[in-house]
């Protein structure tokens, strides 16, 4: 492929199969504006039509395309090859901490189930359904909520966290991060319910602030800070006897 042999090429090792699998090596031409998703796509389109992977939006909005790239969990559609290749070498694995489906695709069900178990969803108050609650954009609560709200549910934090591997019941950084936005949502009718849901045995207190979540979140969110917030709030609630 490399035109006149001048272009560089990449050596790419890709995990094939499910839990029992192997690495398959490919040589992929290196392009200037190439992302890891492009590399994977190239392999599927031109080199091995059976390669499985997942993506949707192509631009970092859907959180479907996360994989492990040279050992780190990343969104592949927004990871420029040049920023991760080590001497022209790339190794791509499926996302850690998830059951594998095939090749680079994992089963994310557990991640969504935990989101549900963390009761990480808005609880409306019956009273106020017609207007818009007045919310000062500079209030502390709104700022806390805003700082954490733009999660795309990519599961990268979940893959980066050792607690998830050590304690399979642990709700994980993303679900807790979402719960924190709700605890700070002045419109939510059940802040205590949210705290209760995350203060269980595998909830926010299981987190040891490893901060793998925060250092890998492609949206630069800090689940660590959100979880710390939940720890504080539930601590206070416990002392007040509200839990």
């Amino acid at each position, binding site marked *: 492929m490399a035109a006149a042999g001048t272009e560089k090429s990449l050596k790419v090792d890709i995990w094939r199969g499910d839990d029992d699998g192997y690495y398959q090596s490919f040589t992929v031409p290196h392009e200037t504006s190439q992302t890891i998703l492009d590399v994977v796509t190239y392999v599927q389109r031109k080199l091995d039509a059976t390669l499985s992977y997942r993506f949707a939006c192509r631009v970092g909005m859907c959180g479907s395309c996360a994989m492990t790239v040279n050992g780190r969990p990343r969104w592949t559609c927004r990871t420029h090859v040049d920023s991760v290749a080590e001497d022209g070498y790339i190794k791509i694995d499926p996302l850690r901490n998830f059951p594998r489906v095939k090749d680079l695709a994992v089963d994310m069900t557990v991640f969504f189930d935990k989101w549900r178990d963390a009761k990480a969803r808005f609880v409306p108050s019956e009273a106020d359904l017609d207007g818009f609650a007045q919310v000062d954009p500079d209030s502390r609560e709104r700022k806390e909520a805003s700082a954490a709200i733009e999660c795309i549910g990519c599961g990268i934090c979940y893959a980066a966290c050792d607690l998830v591997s050590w304690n399979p019941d642990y709700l994980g950084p993303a679900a807790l991060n979402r719960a924190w936005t709700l605890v700070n949502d002045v419109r939510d009718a059940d802040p205590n319910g949210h705290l209760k849901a995350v203060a269980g045995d595998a909830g926010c*207190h299981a987190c040891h602030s490893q901060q793998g979540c925060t250092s890998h979140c492609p949206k630069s969110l800090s689940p660590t800070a959100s979880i710390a917030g939940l720890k504080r709030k539930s601590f206070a609630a416990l002392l007040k006897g509200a839990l």
Partner: protein
Amino acid sequence: MSGRLELWLFVLQRLSAMVLAPLVLIHLVTMIYAVQGGLSAAEILSRTQANAIWPVLYGLFIVAVAIHGAIGLRSILREMTPLRDKGAGAVAVAFCALVLILGYRAVGAIA
């Protein structure tokens, strides 16, 4: 399971840590100061027996560290060894008891 155990353990561990921090600091500073002359039993005892504050501080330290260390060990065991809730809990309780017993003997000795 009450569902609140972890929360209580968290609270206890953080509170005990907050208690330990100044105590350890004091201990470290006195140790650094004390070892300058070289350690001896008499020297230790003369220092600790001179003021009733020492036994109190060390007594507090023992309680705090027994709780704190036990909870810490429990997480490590649960997370990094095949021991799960029960086993880790048992080890933690044993640790706690051991530290309390040995600790009280030691504090008793220096008082």
